[in-house]
């Protein structure tokens, strides 16, 4: 979680300084969801991600070097500079290039599950999406198909209360995303998405059920994006008070307190982790800066196998 948070903080400044092109959709505040879910998955399991994929990528095992270089648009990036911020992914760690069409992963993930089921590999696919995606037809078609086929899929809703600027209650009369699972004979569960241990526990159960052939679970992880939707977002649609309330539930602060209280770690050990993370990110930025650009001459060979 700390790696994701500090990666995003670096990216924010590097973007403002003009080193990272395009735009970035950042993940600060939602770290517990990516980390809790990916920790419940095996390395051989797969995830699909969204336009806000940096946290998912790092949690699933994309290296900070490969992720940072991709944001810089470099040949050494995890997608060789062809993907970019919104399409981070790496087949070697079980992550498709992130799907930046809202709800786009919700049908594609059923194909991953179908392949695992038909080939009897025992693998599971987890699909990340926001609550906004649950009003897309793809959400409903994907969940229903996964349910009737009993596919080894976990649908992970990162319910951060706003689809870009639009509050959930403006676009749904049903307060709970989890409740929508019932319409398809799947299990829905509300999860505290600011508590990494709670997410991991819920995800572990959902993954176990998926692996056992019991079909998909819909996890409704209540979380909060501490920053704007994208870098041009001044967040005028929500109050600073609301933001401060959610920041009191910061998943990193919370885990830190838990670890200190139960004696799993002391201040020195946690400081050391912070130091390692910073060193890794220094290295990642330096790697990205010094990496070569992709060669436009190779571009036309990439669209087809």
């Amino acid at each position, binding site marked *: 979680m700390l790696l994701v948070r500090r990666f995003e903080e670096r990216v924010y400044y590097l973007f403002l300084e003009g080193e990272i092109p395009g735009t970035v959709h950042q993940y600060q505040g939602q770290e517990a969801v990516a980390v809790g879910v990916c920790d419940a998955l095996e390395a051989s399991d797969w995830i699909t991600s969204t336009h806000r994929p940096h946290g998912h990528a790092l949690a699933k095992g994309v290296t900070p070097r490969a992720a940072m270089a991709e944001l810089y648009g470099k040949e050494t990036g995890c997608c060789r500079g062809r993907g970019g911020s919104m399409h981070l992914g790496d087949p070697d760690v079980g992550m498709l290039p992130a799907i930046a069409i809202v709800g786009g992963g919700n049908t594609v993930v059923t194909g991953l599950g179908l392949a695992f089921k038909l080939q009897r590999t025992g693998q599971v696919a987890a699909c990340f999406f926001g609550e906004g995606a649950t009003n897309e037809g793809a959400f409903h078609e994907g969940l229903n198909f996964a349910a*009737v086929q009993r596919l080894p899929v976990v649908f992970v809703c990162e319910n951060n209360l706003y689809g870009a600027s639009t509050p959930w209650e403006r676009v749904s009369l049903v307060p709970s995303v989890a409740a929508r699972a019932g319409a398809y004979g799947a299990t829905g569960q509300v999860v505290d998405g600011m508590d990494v241990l709670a997410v991991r526990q819920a995800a572990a159960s959902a993954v176990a059920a998926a692996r056992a052939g019991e079909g998909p679970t819909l996890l409704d992880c209540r979380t909060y994006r501490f920053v704007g939707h994208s870098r041009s977002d001044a967040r005028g649609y929500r109050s600073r008070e609301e933001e401060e309330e959610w920041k009191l539930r910061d998943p990193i602060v919370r885990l830190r307190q838990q670890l200190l209280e139960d004696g799993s770690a002391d201040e020195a050990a946690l400081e050391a982790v912070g130091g390692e993370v910073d060193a890794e990110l220094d290295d990642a930025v330096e790697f990205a800066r010094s990496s070569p650009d992709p060669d436009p001459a190779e571009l036309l060979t990439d669209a087809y196998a």
Partner: protein
Amino acid sequence: MPTPETPGGARRLTIAEALREAVAEEMRRDESVFLIGEDIGIEGGFGGAFGVYLGLTDEFGHERIIDTPISEKAIAGAAVGAALMGLRPIADMQYSDFLFECMDELVNQAAKMRLMSGGRLRVPLVMRAPVGATVRGAQHGQSPESYFAHVPGLKVVCVSDAYHAKGLLKSAVRDDNPVLFFEHKLLYGTKGREQAGGLDLTAEVPEEEYLFPIGRAVVKRAGCDVTLVATHVSLYRCLAAAEALAAEAGIECEVIDPLTLLPLDADTLWTSVRKTGRLVIVHEDTLTGGWGGEVAARAADECLYALEAPIKRVAALDVPVPYAPVLEQAVVPTSERITTAVLEVCR
């Protein structure tokens, strides 16, 4: 291309039979091939909207012939995901009009995953879809292949006879890229509906295995005066027009079936155009933005100085397909309209 001689005597198959055979052969050959779509394997059902999969469930079972909800996005999305994991899905759209339900899965996901992954992923899927105006009205009568011929990352195949249908479907299944495979509803059957001109729609299909490559056009009729390029049922209307023009006006048309729209077999097309100096492109897709425009533009680019007349396109009129047979016939390219265009460029 003439049908190869078949040792032990020729068989004649319909397109539906040839496609069924291609599917069965590929499923026997490769465990990773499976079918997914609506109403394809239900006992007592249809074997797909046009019967192509009839009887296959007996051999391959429901695990490899997956009947889905009426969820085109799920069909296409599942095909994309399974293909990314190394399987080779043959997905089925009952009507090509329904492809618009899953444009995201095909255009944003299937076509782009390879590039977005830096060339590390493959998406070996086939999406079969029937096209064509057959008195079913505006939402079951389109020929939408041009939408997909515009998309880098996809391949687009249009078949018009059993021999090429079988060889191309087998190639499509083995291709590591997403292939949109368009068939015309009037060309499936044996007898040939009146609308299709009462054609004999069977073709010789060898008993032994063969492939026909994606990206190769065939010259269906040789001629020296004008090149006609047409797919699907329009191809047969061109062939009929060509015979009449030869008999009545002494004009020899060279008729080419491109078979693949993306990537186009430029060599075959431009070789013919350079020979004849005249080009007429015929398709049942609408005129504006149809693939004929792309062929015309490229012909102008490649062989303008060989042209002796303006390039003509004979296409469906720029209106939604109407229902009444008399209206529908006024919309689609008929042999009469093709003949008129040829006479114009041969003036």
